């Protein structure tokens, strides 16, 4: 018993060391928050277009038509990081030829229109979520937030915060590529 006790601290240290070694895995991000929606179909929602912008609104029916992955970006004109992210998204749409739709979260139509007129509109469709109800359905924790929905209408990826760093962009591209590959 005594001999066992003498070795106990060493054993505990080894277990902690192993856990620490495992934890250093560079792909692991302790800050990522898993979303309950991953692997689930797109929630039920139906949003009108932003008044004054024209174009189409966004609803559950717009997903799962089998054409390819869709990037869903939640944004607002009052959100400063969205402004930085906007440029990145615009470039992605231009270069990667992807389908980008937007949810304009808790925003006044005039303000959103002015914002999109100033910065340009990279979105194929934008749903105006003035009440924030659709945001609740999507389970967002803040703005901006971005989801990848695959061709079958299943949410496969969620990113919290602005996609401005190279690392964030790389993660998003990887998720998009995987979503696209799963289609076949």
């Amino acid at each position, binding site marked *: 018993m*005594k*001999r066992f006790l*003498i*070795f106990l*601290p*060493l054993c505990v*240290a*080894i277990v*902690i*060391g192993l*856990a*620490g*070694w*495992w*934890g*250093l*895995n*560079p792909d692991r991000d*302790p*800050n*990522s*928050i*898993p979303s309950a929606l991953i692997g689930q179909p797109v929630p039920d929602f139906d949003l009108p277009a932003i008044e004054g912008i024209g174009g189409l609104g966004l609803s559950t029916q717009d997903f799962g038509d089998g054409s390819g992955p869709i990037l869903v970006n939640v944004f*607002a*004109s*009052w959100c400063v990081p969205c402004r930085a992210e906007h440029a990145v998204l615009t470039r992605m749409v231009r270069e990667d030829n992807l389908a980008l739709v937007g949810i304009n979260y*808790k*925003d*006044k139509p005039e*303000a959103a229109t002015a914002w999109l007129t100033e910065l340009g509109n990279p979105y194929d469709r934008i749903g105006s979520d003035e009440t924030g109800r659709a945001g609740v359905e999507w389970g967002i924790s803040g703005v901006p937030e971005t989801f990848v929905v695959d061709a079958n209408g299943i949410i496969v990826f969620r990113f919290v915060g602005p996609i401005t760093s190279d690392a964030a962009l790389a993660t998003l591209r990887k998720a998009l590529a995987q979503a696209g590959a799963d289609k076949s």
Partner: protein
Amino acid sequence: MIPEIGQFALTLALMTAVVQGILPIWGAARNNAVWMRSATPTAALQCILIAIAFGALMRSFVVSDFTVVNVVENSHSLKPMLFKVAGTWGSHEGSLLLWTLILAVFGAAVALLGQNIPTSLKARTLSVQAWISTGFLSFMLFTSNPFDRIFPAPLDGNDLNPLLQDVGLAMHPPLLYIGYVGFSIVFSFAVAALIEGRVDPAWARWVRPWTLAAWVALTGGIALGSWWAYYELGWGGWWFWDPVENVSFMPWLLGTALLHSAVVTEKRGAFKSWTILLAILTFSLSLLGTFIVRSGLLTSVHAFAVDPERGAYILGLLVLSIGGSLTLYAIRAPKMDPGGLFAPVSREGGLLINNLLLALATATVLFGTLYPLFLEAITGDKISVGPPFFNASFIPIMLPLVIVMGVGPFLSWKRADLPGVFDRLKWVIFITLISLLVVWYMQTKGPALAVLAMAIAVWLLLATLREWSLRIKLGQVSFSESRDRLRRVPRSSHGMTLAHAGLAVCIFGFVGSSAWKSEEVLFVEPGTQIEIAGFDVTFEGTERVQGPNYVAAVGVLRVMRNGRDVTVLRPERRTYPVAQSQTTEAAIRSTPAGDLYASITEPANEDATGKWTLRILYEPLVGLVWLGSLMLVLGGLTSLTDRRLRVGSPKRKTPVATAPIAGE
């Protein structure tokens, strides 16, 4: 040029550390006095070289030398001078340099001040200390060089994280590191004693001042950190059981245990193997803290930039130092003789309970901190362990400890007379019960645990004061004789009284501010009125203020009580354009009875233009948290000035000869 001198000095310091790590310990094995004595000059030289490197980095910050990457990333030419200096240790690289500097300072201090330590023990201790230096110096030079240059140099820097631009926090890392790293020398002493195969009361006495110094600094560091969190984060809390807080708290808990078990080793020759183990584990937990904070292993509000390569290197250092020392311990410890015998009810018995409970509390905090990591490794689930777990597990362990703390100092060594002790404490018990009822009456709805904790704190405070008054025979003999006794009682006893009373004061603060605080969070517009804890608060609007490197919106809150003006609170929301971030400066009105605390954040979204989010709290007794911490620090310092730590230590084998006066 200056940064290159720093880099060169650092490289030379690594060489010196390698020599210091080999020569003295080899000399001790071969009984070569010259090689053993080489530890003193090498330790001093190493310290000087690292100080030169540190000075070089600090100069780069002071003159804003933007050819150095570290300065670019953590400074800005418009930053106030104090924060330019503090920026030196604001980054991962700079703080690591501070870490090694303190390590070397402690090594040099032992080399130069520890003249009564036997040559062989000193040589081995300094060699072990140099191994740690070697590990961290190489870590710095190979993975996190603070002197890396950048070309072309940018026009200005990125600014230090504004949250860290604060006087309290500028001082927090140095104090915390003195605490963390101070335990390294105790660790080195322990490993040296294991290598030498000899632990005796004299050893415990040589180690004691270093343990105390580290403990004092760590206490101060933690208290400053929590004070900073209190007024800077704007949540009104002072402890969040965040992983980074926990990793500084664990060495403190175990260091406290070490402080007490070393007394038993010193006075009675018992607990030897346990004291050695505590010395090793305390520093191991400091290292674990360094690892967790710098590897991004756990999610936390405070963290450095994360780099897996660095994490792997520190993990390697941990495996060598912790694994090595614990293996050595497992081999050597069974051969140590158990030392003095004692009855269950005795000073030793009391300190044993103290040690068991503190170790258990440390294990609880360690488990709660690492549990998310274990769970994720095994099942992949992500959870976070928060205050409910720690409050439910930690507090029930600490309360019995505090009860025992009240009695402990009354117990005599070897065998104590428990009925006699309770006889001397009967008034204390009586008053404690009365105050229990009074608190219960005042806070009938208050949580039972809080009422109990309040009473236990009263118990500790009174019992501590009673022990002190008995020691100087206050009231039993003439006042002048009491005063005379006051002078003759060893300072370490006064230190103990002060520290124990300090903990009681802390508990008043802990309980008052967490169990009985009032809190309101609401949207306010100019003219909004709030009533909180008897205060009528009116939000009068916001003003814009331009600071040196920020702009601030200052909320104006008029506080009235019973129709009379009390004060105007001015909480600030600062925006730092360069660092692109914001900080909260809470406005606090402190009184001994409690703090009225307000912080504001800007409108949350478009719908709420002009509406500010105001958080206003009344926290009873919260100031006592820091008053008590200050008493803990002063108690430690008083104990550190004790005569027996200053004048000649006992010669080995005759440790009983210089027992101090007045029943310790």
